[in-house]
């Protein structure tokens, strides 16, 4: 009887401990700012920031999230969160790394937004901005920005800011558009990671030298790729992942692209786009210099079996661990004299349901200062999104690779990079799901370029204004 009573008491104690430990976590790390979703009302197409609240002396708890690529980035962002926590008066921060192997960052975030439990400030890729903005999921912070002394949208790269200041109600963009959806966390672009040992062994010219001499074009690229491919059946001249970024550059470089200039229709079937696609197809099908399309090229590159690996700055931390001589070079120039590179970016945005928009805006600004961006850039994964010679100079010091300048050349005005961006007049995810398999069909030889050009826009144009 006594033992039974003790067991009952112990069980009760354990359950109570669980409950109190759950609350203890909240009490210790501060409760999320948004404890429950406000009642849903008809969401306006464009969510305006709430009116300014009366100043409060209470400590405001904010949760924020950005997608890290590895543990080192998680550590840096955690450190940044701690520093900003100390800097921002009246604001307590909690950093949440998002996304795992089993839970895609964006999918998880969307679920939390739907459930009303998303953080106050979060990062989204540039392609998602329109979806989040037009559905009223993120705040339009243009009013808050207008009241902020010293804030200038011109401090950031114009490509991302075009989309981040796009007002879907007026089709206007820029500082006076009446829209500001967030600030870019960083920018990035593609370069070719070079296995210098393979290139030397093949007796191919050094792409970095060719680039300096202005001779780094598609023909020179093909020449290096073919010479290195000849080293062995398991050695490849070129490797790129299977998503829109890598194949898009070939279309851009020949003067084509995914969309028309106003981004309101498909342009995949223009002669320029098809020319770029055909050249890329030839790398896989005619010259057989590339790792099979659809296979991850990073493992073979790191195993020393790929001479030129196309990837963004984010691949640098991983490549730093290889045991061969390597460096980077900008993408080769296409028929139009530019490499057709992308200006990748993602933005810190503010949850439309945050209870503390002003504090969240302060946090977004703090996360995008030159100092904060420099701390992240030191990892070698990102380029600061502020247009500042100081930031660029600092970036050049984060070696290896020795030729960091290649990344900056990729985003320079002379290279005319195309800014990654959402579809304000359609659904980017659906466009991507139609375009990706069709391009894959061409690059794997299942479809001809002509057949692709004949049918692709019939299907892809359906995603506009659905």
């Amino acid at each position, binding site marked *: 009887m006594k033992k039974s009573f003790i067991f009952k008491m112990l069980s009760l104690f354990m359950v109570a401990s669980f409950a*109190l*430990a759950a609350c*203890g976590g909240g009490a210790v790390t501060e*409760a999320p700012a948004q404890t429950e979703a406000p009642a849903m009302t008809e969401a306006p197409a464009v969510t305006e920031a709430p009116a300014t609240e009366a100043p409060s002396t209470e400590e405001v708890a904010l949760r924020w999230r950005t997608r890290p690529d590895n543990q080192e980035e998680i550590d840096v962002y955690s450190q940044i969160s701690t520093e900003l926590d100390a800097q921002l008066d009246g604001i307590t921060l909690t950093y949440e790394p998002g996304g795992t192997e089993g839970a895609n960052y964006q999918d998880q975030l969307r679920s939390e937004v*739907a459930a009303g439990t998303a953080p106050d400030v979060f990062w989204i890729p540039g392609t998602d901005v329109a979806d989040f903005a037009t559905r009223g999921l993120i705040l339009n912070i243009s009013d808050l920005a207008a009241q902020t002394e010293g804030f200038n949208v011109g401090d950031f790269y114009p490509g991302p800011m075009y989309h981040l200041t796009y007002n879907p109600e007026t089709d206007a963009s820029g500082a006076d558009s009446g829209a500001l959806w967030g600030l870019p966390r960083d920018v990035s672009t593609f370069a070719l990671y070079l296995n210098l040992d393979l290139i030397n062994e093949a007796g191919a010219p050094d792409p970095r030298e060719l680039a300096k001499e202005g001779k780094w074009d598609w023909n020179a690229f093909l020449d290096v790729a073919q010479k290195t491919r000849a080293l062995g059946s398991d050695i490849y001249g070129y490797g790129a992942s299977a998503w829109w970024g890598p194949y898009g550059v070939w279309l851009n470089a020949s003067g084509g692209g995914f969309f028309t200039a106003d981004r309101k229709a498909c342009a995949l079937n223009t002669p320029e786009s098809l020319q770029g696609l055909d050249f890329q197809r030839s790398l896989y099908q005619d010259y057989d210099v590339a790792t*099979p399309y659809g*296979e*991850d090229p990073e493992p073979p590159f790191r195993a020393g079996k790929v001479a030129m690996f196309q990837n963004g700055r984010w691949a640098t931390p991983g490549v730093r661990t290889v045991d061969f001589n390597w460096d980077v070079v900008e993408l080769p120039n296409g028929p139009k004299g530019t490499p057709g590179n992308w200006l990748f970016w993602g933005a810190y945005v503010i949850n439309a349901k945050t209870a503390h928009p002003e504090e969240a805006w302060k946090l977004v600004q703090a996360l995008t200062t030159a100092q904060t961006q420099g701390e992240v850039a030191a990892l070698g994964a990102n380029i600061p999104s502020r247009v500042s010679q100081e930031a660029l100079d600092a970036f050049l010091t984060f070696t290896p690779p020795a030729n960091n300048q290649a990344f900056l050349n990729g985003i320079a005005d002379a290279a005319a990079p195309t800014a990654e961006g959402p579809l304000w007049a359609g659904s980017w995810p659906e466009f991507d799901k139609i375009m990706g398999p069709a391009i894959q069909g061409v690059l794997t030889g299942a479809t001809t370029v002509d057949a692709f050009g004949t049918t692709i826009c*019939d299907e892809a144009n359906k995603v506009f204004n659905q």
Partner: protein
Amino acid sequence: MTKVASLDARTNQILRLQVIWRVVFAVLAAAGTLAPWIGWVTLASNWQKILVSALLLVATLASLIGARQLTRRSHAGRLVSLTLDYLAFVTCAVITLNTGEIFIGIDALGETFGRGLPYLGIAIAGYFLGAIEDYYPQRNLSVTTSLKTVSRWIILGGFVLFLWQVGAVNGLLYFLGKLAQPKGFVAVAGILVFGFSLWSMMRPEVAQALNAKTNHEQIINGWLFLSPNLLGFLIFFAGPLILSFYFSFTDSDAFNPPNWVGFDNYARILNVRFAWLSTPDQLARDVVDIKVYDEVGRLTLGNGGLLFAAADKFFWLALRNTLTFVLFAVPFSVIPALLLSNVLNSKLPGMKFFRAVYFMPSIAAVVGISLVWQWLYNATIGYINYFITLGIEFWNNLFNLAVVDPKIQWVSDEKTALFAVIIIAAWQSMGFNTVLFLAGLQNIPGELYEAATVDGAGSWAKFWGITLPMLAPTTFYVVSTTTIQAMQVFEQVFILMNPPEGPNNSTITLVLYLYRSGFQNFKQGYASAIAWVLFIVIFGLTLVQFQRQRRSSIYEG
């Protein structure tokens, strides 16, 4: 006699209070029924208002019926009261926990509780110290007393440290702080009121006064024990199921109030066209309205052909891939399991070890397995191709052959991608199916085999004539469950393939597509419709299997 009289008086008092309480409850529930419609409570959409009002209306009517039955001293009144008060009690408890942010804090439980675990270990060590006496009695009484005392202090100290480390004090203060708001007060008051009502109605005197019989008490206790599971089922399974059925008739995007669209979602899924082609390569736009339809596939017939187009081609591609997956994955995971179970059923040494080995893939995490297979499948540096190359080189050198290394692009070639997923799925589910077959095999009476041996039957004849027929119920179960699982294939594809749809949509499956529609394209309504179509397909397949089982089963009573 006096005691009995006073008990009766108290019971009567309780019953009178219960009747009044039932009427008050009914009035409150009726007010709650109207609350969402007159602005007292804000709910996001009409379906939520209707649901809440309907539930409260039922509660109102039930409470009034309960009051009437109680006045008649009918036991039905007690059952109604207990049911309503129990449900309201649970609701208030959940609201209290939610108001105190227990559920949000659960995310941090692993960290906070983990901090305290070492100190819980101290408390457990203290308990064992005290328990030494039970197992190794001491001759010296003072030693025993000292051990008990030390044990108690260690347990107490361990618990205090544990509570301190898990932040129980902070947690309690935080919890109480959060409850200090109208919602919290109402919820706690609800717990007390409904709890008191439950307690009073559970009193034996009250039960006796309402003519409760033994089986009534058993029924109440039975439902009480069943209630956690039943409520969980209703709230987390049946509720969402019904909700998804409703959403399938709306344009819900999960963020904004949904609009009713009738059968539009289903119509889009099922909107297909067949058209004759005058030449095998005639364009789809020449024969169907390309603004509505996309080509799904074509069949070449002589100089012409047949085009299959659909308004949602991805659904039909997903259905094709899913059925193909089922067609191969089910036999590949059932037939080897059947053969393997016969081998493992033997009494050879080491069989138990191999039973465990073959079962291991079933308990391994799908994400981990898929990532490992991703590396194995890599066309350029993966082990599978590496060994294929080694093997071909070996045979070429040995026999002076010129066999070409196929360098299979397992996951990047549309011809092999789905097959790669099938291999993983079959490999993973084979172990579990083997265990099921083993259980079935061990239920077959040994006398049957002995009789067959006496009759001169060989191993094959025994397997074909005894084992297979006797395993029919197990086989039916294994095939049915494996088919249902295969129809819902998702994780392996989602992790293994990049992008998950695979080359030229060759690995897009129905669950993957509904996930993509609901969580990536913001089309929760459409995704719900896909889910219900998938349900109908699975239901149809299972029904066919049941009917075939009934026809062919000769060993069932």
